[in-house]
């Protein structure tokens, strides 16, 4: 094994990520590098038509920011992104360095698909959706949830290259001093697979996505039907918040799978998570950041959600939600 290979970590940023998600992941990756004396390369992928609009974040360690463009990357599929990432990792510009020991991607289905495709291509290890990882001697160690978030696995591998998504919880400290990454441009021209035959289906959902939302209004099986979720949607609209739900509510068709929160769904880190009719199973809580303030409404005073909530109301949503909606419609001025 090339022991030098232990000394680099690469982060692959996807063009579909928002700036907050990118910066959170980068700070988490920088923390891994700091703990294990690794160098950091940031591989930021963008489509042919996208411009480099973002300001590079200051990080606690020196790093290289590779602004990667590929003229053929018109469809932002995981397959295309994995192919461009693979070309970047093996490009002449990077070939003089040892291959990164750990390659990190953003959490979620897109990141996981890229992880699996890259690991397969490079004959490396796919560690999945990790909560934490590090280097221990010749091995990479990773921790990841299983059994619906009820168990934590400790994984070890001696593979030269490891690929994983990292669920980072801690937001970078605003105003903290740091070092701006060294920006380098990489234009790739290698062959890509033909894009898939994809047609968007028109939908009219004016609510923001759960990722990156400051407030998430979420419901569980206790909502018992579309009527309750209609109220949650109206409350979300009033607040400019995102609407979310647990897996059973997606199964029941009350909310879209794009809004599923939990171990099998999205991971969210809003400032406030309004949890209504949610019992607080580990599977669902696995999708909510530990830094989020949970405000729970549940008619069962012994519901597990109250053990993790910052504020709670014991009551029937049929009574509380209509009153809350009316109050929110009056707005902030009513309380003055």
């Amino acid at each position, binding site marked *: 094994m090339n022991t030098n290979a232990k000394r680099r970590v690469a982060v692959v940023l996807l063009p579909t990520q928002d700036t907050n998600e990118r910066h959170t992941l980068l700070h988490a990756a920088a923390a891994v590098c700091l703990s294990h004396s690794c160098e950091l390369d940031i591989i930021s992928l963008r489509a042919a038509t996208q411009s480099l609009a973002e300001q590079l974040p200051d990080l606690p360690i020196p790093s290289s920011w590779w602004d990667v463009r590929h003229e053929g990357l018109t469809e932002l599929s995981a397959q295309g992104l994995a192919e461009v990432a693979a070309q970047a990792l093996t490009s002449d510009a990077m070939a003089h360095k040892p291959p990164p020991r750990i390659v990190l991607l953003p959490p979620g289905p897109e990141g996981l698909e890229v992880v699996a495709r890259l*690991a397969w291509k490079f004959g490396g290890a796919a560690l999945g959706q990790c909560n934490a990882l590090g280097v221990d001697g010749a091995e990479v160690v990773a921790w990841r949830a299983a059994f619906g978030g009820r168990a934590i696995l400790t994984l070890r591998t001696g593979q030269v290259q490891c690929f994983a998504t990292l669920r980072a919880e801690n937001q970078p400290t605003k105003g903290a001093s740091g070092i701006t990454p060294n920006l380098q441009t990489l234009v790739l021209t290698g062959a890509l697979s033909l894009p898939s035959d994809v047609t968007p289906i028109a939908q009219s959902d004016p609510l923001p996505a759960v990722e990156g939302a400051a407030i998430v209004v979420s419901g569980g099986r206790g909502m018992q039907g579309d009527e309750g979720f209609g109220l949650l949607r109206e409350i979300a609209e009033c607040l400019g918040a995102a609407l979310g739900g647990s897996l059973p509510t997606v199964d029941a068709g009350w909310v879209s799978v794009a809004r599923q929160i939990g171990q099998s769904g999205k991971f969210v880190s809003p400032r406030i998570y309004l949890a209504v009719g949610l019992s607080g199973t580990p599977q669902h*809580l696995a999708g909510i950041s530990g830094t989020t303030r949970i405000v729970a409404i549940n008619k069962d005073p012994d519901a597990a959600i109250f053990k993790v909530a910052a504020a709670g109301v014991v009551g029937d949503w049929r009574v509380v939600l209509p009153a809350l909606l009316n109050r929110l419609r009056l707005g902030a001025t009513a309380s003055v």
Partner: protein
Amino acid sequence: MNILVLICGIADPKYPLPRDISVSALEGARAAHVLLSPFDEAALEIALKLRDTNPAVHITALVLARSAMDPLLRTVGSLRPDVTRGLDSNGLPAWDGLGMARVLADAVSQLEHAPDLLLLGRELGDYDDGTAPVAVAQALRMNYSKLIFSATLEGACVHGVRQNAAQQESIRLALPAVLSVTNDARNKLRHPLLKNVMEVKKIAFKVLNCLQTTSACVQLANVGAAVERPRSTVCQMVSGDTDAQVEMLAALLLEKASAQ
């Protein structure tokens, strides 16, 4: 048209995990209370729907099973796929998506009917978080799409509806292809007929052996109970009548909303 459905099953989440968690204890928990995951169910239902509309469709269900008596085999068999086979799950590296993909690709090569379409849940069992399905497609060199709600066959292509970020899309893939399926209210698994439930009790299911030479490149060093993450505050229960409770909730939410 041969459709293969890969089924893994999960430990019923209604039952708590054993207090002293170990790999063998988790296997025991799964054996005692195994059921189809919502994603397994959705994959199986899509296959059955495709056969409903096209009698030429032949469904093979390959079920990861601890033995020929694994109840998951009977659950799947009662829904009458054309063939139900077990795949010996003992000792498989379920936590290693790529290792599992190699095992599954080998098992697929042992089947009588090479699949034109392979359907599986978006997570393959309790240990997987979504890397195994795409790795299976890589191992079998098949086209792949994820987060599929529904599928129809159109000649040499499969046409699916999928979730991509916040957007739903229609996608057409050339066969052979692998689709990883997500849960959807319009695709709930049908109930088996009672006569079929009774009939499968008499069936001795065939269980395939796994490739013995496969070694996981990721080792499971330890498994433990997830620890509830400490929160910085104790829950402040909002007392008073509904109006008082609502006033407090509204103040909290409006303050955060205005700070956006």
